[in-house]
């Protein structure tokens, strides 16, 4: 921060100061970081329990993760079963109806929701801390005793089909779906939503056996953060989850990724669009990879911070778009890097040009010291903010366990970021910002923008349902 240290400090005075200070005040002395600590215990059934006190408000936040129930699990026989199961386990258990579950949550000031992704199914739950034991009991009940009532299953099937139809009207849904399929192909990471037939043929028995087999304590971790007393909390957890039966952890599946030998455009035609939704990217690395901190920081400089190169270029200089961005999504087995923007039809071609130019610039030229230092401060400062919220901290701890990171990740974060050099950033960009093999996904009105798109590569055309069209 040479720039900031050069600031002229005006004296604090009661005399009127006529002009505003011209340069930014320097930082005050650094405050203690107070990095949160967590403790880990294992229950007899294999459940890993992680506790981290954070008494900022009288609430408690929990994440229970099933690492064997992923979007890819059992996808050959039952595509989408992890997602449907996640949506249904809190719609009825052996002893509670759906409504009783929702009412119990209301009376403890609680929330409980599940979601699945390529690496895990997570149950995220919160409540007033005085009701923590009731929250754990409810989490345990839906984990072990989901009953999948026929009426709830039928309703979920129908509503999921309708929701996906509604989603296909949304350019954000379409561009993401096509991007995941373009870069991950048939790898489980390329699975986004099931087709209607797969949804409608799922049975109660399929779902029952799925959760029995894959929601198992020896492939799960429970993170509890908040206004807690660890000994008392652990006792409550043991009482709620102690009888949960362990199972057999299935073999991990990690088939090869598609190899892209050239840049390719995937165009989803959406007639009537007044904007083109653009994603450009490719596969990258898993979270545990040694390049993680470098690609994360390259992403910050390129497009994920507000004062990023992409924002300065296509928003603040050219006015093409409101929301340019980039995103480094590193997960358990692999990841992706992507840049994107939603732009008016008339500037679709110019936007592609600038996104690719800025990617290439990261590959070819080193970032400046000023940019690198700013990115480091940005990452470490915002990390502190993230860790100050219960779900922020719980989510961060969850990545440590799901992605098999070093347990000292939180303590190591700052030194790892601070050690990066401009050469590290350029090397990571050269590997992962590869414009020559990139997938370019566009959702828009083909007739309006085709002449701007075709110069950038071969085009495969899709309709909103995901079918290839000629």
């Amino acid at each position, binding site marked *: 921060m040479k720039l900031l240290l050069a600031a002229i400090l005006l004296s604090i005075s009661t005399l009127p100061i006529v002009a505003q200070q011209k340069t930014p005040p320097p930082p005050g002395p650094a405050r203690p970081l107070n990095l949160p600590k967590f403790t880990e215990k294992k229950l007899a059934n294999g459940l890993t329990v992680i506790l981290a006190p954070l008494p900022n408000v009288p609430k408690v936040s929990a994440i229970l993760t099933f690492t064997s129930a992923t979007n890819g699990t059992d996808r050959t026989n039952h595509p989408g079963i992890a997602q449907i199961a996640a949506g249904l386990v809190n719609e009825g258990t052996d002893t509670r109806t759906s409504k009783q579950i929702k009412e119990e949550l209301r009376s403890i000031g609680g929330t409980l929701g599940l979601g699945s992704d390529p690496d895990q199914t997570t149950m995220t739950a919160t409540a007033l801390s*005085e009701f923590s034991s009731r929250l754990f009991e409810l989490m345990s009940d839906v984990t072990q005793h989901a009953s999948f009532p026929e009426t709830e299953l039928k309703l979920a099937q129908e509503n999921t089909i309708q929701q996906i139809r509604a989603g296909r009207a949304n350019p954000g849904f379409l561009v993401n779906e096509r991007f995941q399929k373009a870069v991950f192909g048939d790898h489980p990471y390329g699975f986004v939503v099931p087709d209607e037939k797969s949804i409608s043929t799922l049975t109660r028995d399929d779902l029952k056996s799925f959760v029995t087999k894959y929601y198992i304590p020896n492939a799960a971790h429970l993170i509890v953060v908040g206004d807690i007393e660890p000994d008392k909390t652990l006792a409550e957890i043991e009482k709620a989850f102690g009888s949960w039966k362990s199972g057999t952890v299935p073999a991990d599946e990690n088939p090869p990724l598609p190899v892209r030998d050239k840049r390719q455009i995937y165009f989803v035609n959406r007639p009537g669009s007044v904007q083109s939704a653009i994603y450009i990217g490719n596969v990258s690395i898993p979270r545990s990879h040694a390049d993680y901190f470098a690609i994360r920081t390259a992403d910050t400089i390129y497009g994920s911070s507000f004062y990023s190169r992409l924002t300065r270029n296509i928003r603040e200089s050219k006015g093409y778009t409101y929301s340019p961005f980039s995103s480094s999504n590193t997960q358990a087995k692999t990841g992706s890097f992507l840049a994107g923007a939603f732009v008016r039809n008339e500037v679709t071609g110019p936007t592609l040009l600038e996104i690719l130019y800025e990617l290439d610039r990261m590959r070819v030229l080193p970032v400046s010291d000023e940019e690198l230092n700013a990115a480091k401060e940005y990452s470490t400062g915002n990390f502190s903010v993230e860790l100050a919220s219960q779900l922020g901290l719980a989510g961060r701890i969850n990545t440590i366990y799901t992605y098999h990171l070093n347990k000292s990740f939180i303590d190591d974060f700052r030194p790892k970021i601070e050690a990066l050099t401009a050469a590290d950033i350029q090397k990571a960009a050269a590997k992962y910002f590869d414009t020559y093999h990139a997938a370019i996904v566009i959702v828009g009105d083909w007739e309006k923008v085709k002449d701007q798109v075709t110069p950038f590569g071969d085009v495969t055309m899709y309709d909103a349902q995901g079918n290839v069209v000629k």
Partner: protein
Amino acid sequence: MQRLVMKLLVLALTMTLGLSSLQAKPVNVPVVYYKLPNGLKVVISEDHIAPVVTVGVYYNVGFRVEPKGRTGFAHLFEHMMFQGSANVKKFEHAKYVEANGGSTNGHTDFDYTNYYETLPSNRLEMALWLEADRMRSLDISEENLKNQQNVVSEEVRVNVLNQPYQLFEWIELWKNAFTNWNNSHNGYGELDEINAATIEDVRSFFKTYYAPNNAVLTIVGDVDSAEVKKMIEKHFGTLTAQPAPPKADLTEPAQTKEKRVSQPDKLANLPALATGYHIPAQSSPDFPAMALLVQILQGDDSSRWYQRLVKEKELTLDLTGGLNYFGNEFDYTGPMIMTTRTTYKPGHTVDEVLKEMDAVTAELVAKGITDKELADAKVRYKSNFYSQLESSFGKAHLLSVLALFRDDPNQINSLLTPFENVTAAQVKAAAAKYLVASNRTVIERVPEAKSQSGQ
């Protein structure tokens, strides 16, 4: 919004008091409150749980008071606040904040516009310097205005014009439910009016509304109040007050009959419905009961409308809405409608959905609510309130609007009390009084004929 999607804090916050638990942990937010001689209201609240601080500057101007012929102007102006000031070049506000480990944004709402930074607490003074510089000396150029008109036009396209439903549950509902232009117009803005704004409009808006005596400065976090006071004096003390802005007329005649509107939707695949009921003013004795009524009807998945429409009758896919479309019970001042939005299944009609909503209401009016339902709604309300207090930004937001609209941020420590005291009879009475057809506006969105294909 400077970045990302306009924050649709659709799930209106609902706060409450469980009787048993209130005594256990009362809300106790430390508050230092004073005014500078130039009229700037200052709120400081220490919180040492993490080495971070939030700085918020809230101006007493929202999109209700933007000029006629200039819809979307208050929000466009918010963008101009990031375009540079005497000592900070265009967009360098973001650079300074991020290079100091923080994040920054702004938001334009019905009755306020805010700007905020969250950053490591030892960088507080830099944030104060940035905010003071733009309050004192916003730098407005033709080129930057044109640039941000383009950016905001794209924001409207991405969030409204290129989306199915086009935020009809806000923009179209407000246009139809209100008659006073200040309340009814499209606050996101019509593209031609956004692009018609001139540099003179920007200068005059700045002079009128962006003065210290029309603002609140709030600091929440790991700081020392005495030191903060000195920094504030240094950076904001020499700003000069401006004449008080004109008071806009926000009065709204009582609605006397139901309004029904049907609109075609070019981009949607499924039909949707939104309703808006005028609610009592915040100062009305009916207000706390109304807030709990909203909670009981549509606050979560246990709520009566959700259970009836989504679960029992299987008519609709979702149910969202709340007491204040963008925020909470405290961060607005003008007239408000309770909104409800639902996407329903093809083959059903808007009348079927309304009939079920009305049946739920009629049942509530006839039989009231149970004691347990009331107690649980209060627990939910309290829990949501605590969630607001969890982050330094959440606390800063509440303190700021309490200072801005009530001149009393200390109310943060007693905000729950009126909601705690609500009785079942009051909830029932509020339903009978406000949830009547003559007090509502209904809009349906009908997908234009096209392939209703799933595959």
